[in-house]
């Protein structure tokens, strides 16, 4: 398993995946967006406002999933000191932050007409906002040390500690009374009609592959900047 830790080998695989991920993502967006925003039926209660769900739900899942990837990579980095794992976490953070922000904004746009309020401090909304702040904290902390290596470790530790929030976000709607509705995917299956489920799943796939594609692009940049740092360091040492 540790041969994946070799950056050259890892990037070879990542670069191989990249065109496929990009293609599938574009295809899913091209089919899913018109289906979700125009063709799919309105909801019996929400009317056309239901269309916000097709962006909101995938964005929320990605916000959680990307943080999970970030925390797992950070654990691998802290334990086995594989630099590539840290770079995956570092490259994921801004993407996850944007997904989470998208979830929060679309949620507010939906809440205003449906609930009658933009925002309430219930367990689901609050824990999701904390998730967003964890992303921001991770991004800020990694670059705030004079010594890059110490910054890397501090950020990885924060990502790991923040993972305690993931089950809270997910189960908040079951553990406590919240204004937010429970999950649409549960033990008993889907509570979404098939005509709405189809575009939703397409959008989920589109978001997933979008993440993979952008992750590869960001990883390339992270690897290059790591190389530049090492080269600068060697140059300074030689002088």
């Amino acid at each position: 398993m540790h041969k994946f830790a070799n950056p050259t080998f890892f990037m070879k695989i990542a670069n191989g995946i990249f065109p496929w991920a990009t293609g599938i993502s574009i295809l899913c967006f091209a089919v899913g967006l018109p289906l979700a925003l125009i063709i799919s039926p309105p909801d019996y209660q929400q009317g056309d406002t239901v269309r916000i769900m097709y962006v909101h739900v995938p964005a929320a899942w990605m916000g959680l999933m990307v943080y999970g990837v970030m925390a797992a990579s950070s654990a691998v980095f802290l334990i086995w000191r594989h630099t590539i794992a840290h770079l995956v976490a570092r490259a994921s953070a801004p993407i996850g932050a944007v997904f989470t922000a998208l979830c929060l904004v679309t949620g507010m746009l939906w809440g205003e007409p449906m609930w009658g309020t933009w925002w309430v401090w219930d367990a689901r909304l609050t824990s999701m906002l904390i998730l967003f702040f964890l992303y921001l904290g991770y991004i800020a902390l990694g670059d705030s040390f004079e010594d890059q290596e110490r910054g890397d470790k501090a950020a990885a530790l924060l990502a790991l500690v923040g993972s305690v929030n993931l089950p809270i976000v997910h189960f908040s709607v079951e553990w406590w009374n919240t204004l937010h509705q429970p999950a649409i995917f549960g033990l008993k299956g889907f509570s979404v009609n098939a005509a709405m489920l189809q575009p939703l799943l397409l959008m989920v796939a589109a978001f997933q592959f979008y993440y993979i594609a952008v992750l590869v692009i960001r990883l390339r940049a992270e690897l290059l900047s790591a190389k530049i740092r090492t080269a600068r360091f060697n140059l300074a040492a030689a002088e």
Partner: protein
Amino acid sequence: MTRKRRRLYFVGLGLLGLFSATALMLTAVEDNIVFFFSPTELKARTVAPEQRMRVGGLVEEGSVNKSGGTVRFTVTDTVESLTIQYNGILPDLFREGQGIVAEGRMGRDGVFLANDVLAKHDETYMPPEVADALKKSGNWHPEGATAQAAEAKPATTSN
């Protein structure tokens, strides 16, 4: 023991401790995390007359009474119910049988005086034709059914 092995145990134990500590903490402050109380939960608590809080439940069928700008209605969790008085604009989703959350305080006569009423939405999504077909065939389970289950067994609300 290698350094890697030691770090693995350290991270594992650290996370275990962190997760347990958080679980204990959240259990301890549960009352502050819940967004609203059901009428049954409210009855079990002693409430100061001016204490601000939120109550939630289903709007009872036929209980909505509008006079001027003031609305009076009853919310229920099917065990207990509570009369709410509200002066203001109701959200679009407000209707009989719908779940709502009201923010305000208990009046002295046992009527809850709301400053704000929010509509709760459940997790079922379907086109209007499907909703009509379900109603016609008698398979319609209005929000009451799912919300009742939710009130009775909070651990299994997700479906």
